[in-house]
């Protein structure tokens, strides 16, 4: 059980801001693959990983980062603060 959060256009494509997912995925990449296989909306949102960023427990990580024991994974486009 892990909370998955989406922001900006990723949130719009997925159609929700947050969901709790039942998964055995070991890495972010595994989770992306698993979700993409479930439904087209995930496949579309995750189709170009180079345009996405990921945070695990609110820290920026790479897609090969472990999510074992993590509470929260978030997907979003490159930030545009400032």
């Amino acid at each position: 059980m892990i909370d998955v959060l989406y922001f900006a256009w990723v949130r719009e494509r997925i159609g929700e801001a947050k969901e709790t997912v039942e998964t055995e995925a070991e890495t972010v990449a595994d989770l992306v693959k698993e979700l993409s296989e479930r439904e087209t909306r995930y496949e579309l949102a995750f189709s170009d990983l180079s345009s996405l960023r990921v945070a695990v427990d609110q820290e920026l990580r790479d897609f090969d980062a472990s999510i074992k024991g993590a509470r929260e994974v978030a997907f979003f486009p490159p930030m545009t603060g400032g």
Partner: protein
Amino acid sequence: MQVRVQTEAFDFGQEANTFAIAQTDMGAIVTFSGIVRNLAETKLSYMDIEHYAGMTEKAIGKIVDEAVSRWSLGDVLVIHRFGRLVPEDLIMMVATASKHRKDAFEAAEFLMDYLKSRAPFWKKEVSDQSQDWVVSKVEDRNALNRW
């Protein structure tokens, strides 16, 4: 050191004064403020700024800590708004205080470069014709390589 992430408007001049007055033995204060531009060509109605509540203050705090470890700073202030902003609204400000102007300038530029690309904010520009997520610029991402 102070980090504020808020929807409310803030008074740039008042914040800058409060920050400056609180300093002792700091000869140099640099501020940056970012304003929603009134772009004639796009006729922007408003800007929606989304952020990652929970991560945002933590991420900014780490950027501030990094600045404090690299430069000799007496104080740092970061204020960043989220929610709906209209043209000419202030989006955010940073202020740095140091004994010498070089530290104050460099730290402020560092903070801005990192806030642009490493703090979890996303801007959407809305006009009568369109709704567009602002795309992160290559030059902004490359700006981090300076540091």
